[in-house]
């Protein structure tokens, strides 16, 4: 069966500090991978997605970046965090299909102070 991991689970960082959030998927190969951000109790904002190694599409211009160094690894980074980067970050994967059913990780709660 497939599993998706995210870490850390929670993170408190000062403004201007760097960020690295990691997501890994097990039990599948060549998945689509996604990073979302969610404000409290609201919908999902797609940040980045990747259909293959080294292929990254950005949906929202901002100070965040994403990388996919391995098939089942997706990393979200920032060189300098802003207060507005606080939120709940979710990683998800899907198989390449027209249904595009997505399976989410447990999320990372980021607080920028």
């Amino acid at each position, binding site marked *: 069966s497939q599993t998706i991991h995210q870490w850390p689970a929670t993170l408190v960082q000062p403004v201007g500090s760097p960020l690295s959030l990691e997501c890994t998927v097990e039990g599948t190969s060549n998945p*689509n991978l*996604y990073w979302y951000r969610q404000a409290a*109790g*609201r*919908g*999902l904002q*797609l940040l980045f*997605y990747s*259909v293959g190694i080294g292929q990254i599409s950005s*949906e929202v211009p901002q100070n965040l970046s994403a990388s996919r160094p391995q098939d089942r690894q997706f990393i979200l980074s920032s060189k300098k965090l802003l207060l507005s980067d606080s939120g709940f970050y*979710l990683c*998800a994967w*899907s198989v*390449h299909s*027209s*249904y*595009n*059913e*997505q*399976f*989410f*990780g*447990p*999320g990372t*709660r980021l607080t920028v102070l």
Partner: protein
Amino acid sequence: TQLLEQSPQFLSIQEGENLTVYCNSSSVFSSLQWYRQEPGEGPVLLVTVVTGGEVKKLKRLTFQFGDARKDSSLHITAAQPGDTGLYLCAGASSGYSTLTFGKGTMLLVSP
């Protein structure tokens, strides 16, 4: 730009009541999914509907895809506190690797 509008945004009911939440768009989707998210966790896929007019049941939850594949509804019978959460609908379009998500309906079921 495809949009999915969910209504209501927030619903607070007593245990045992029935409810329906809606997901509407002016765009046609090849399939539509419903997710439930509990506080502090990632969304969990409940169902995918594919065919216009399709109805799927998951215990006390009934999902319907509109005939024109532009809208969907979720009906919960005899709601229980365990149904509390954020319900998200998401539409898929052929040839696209991303989903269009609605902003969600927050459901609170009180004992």
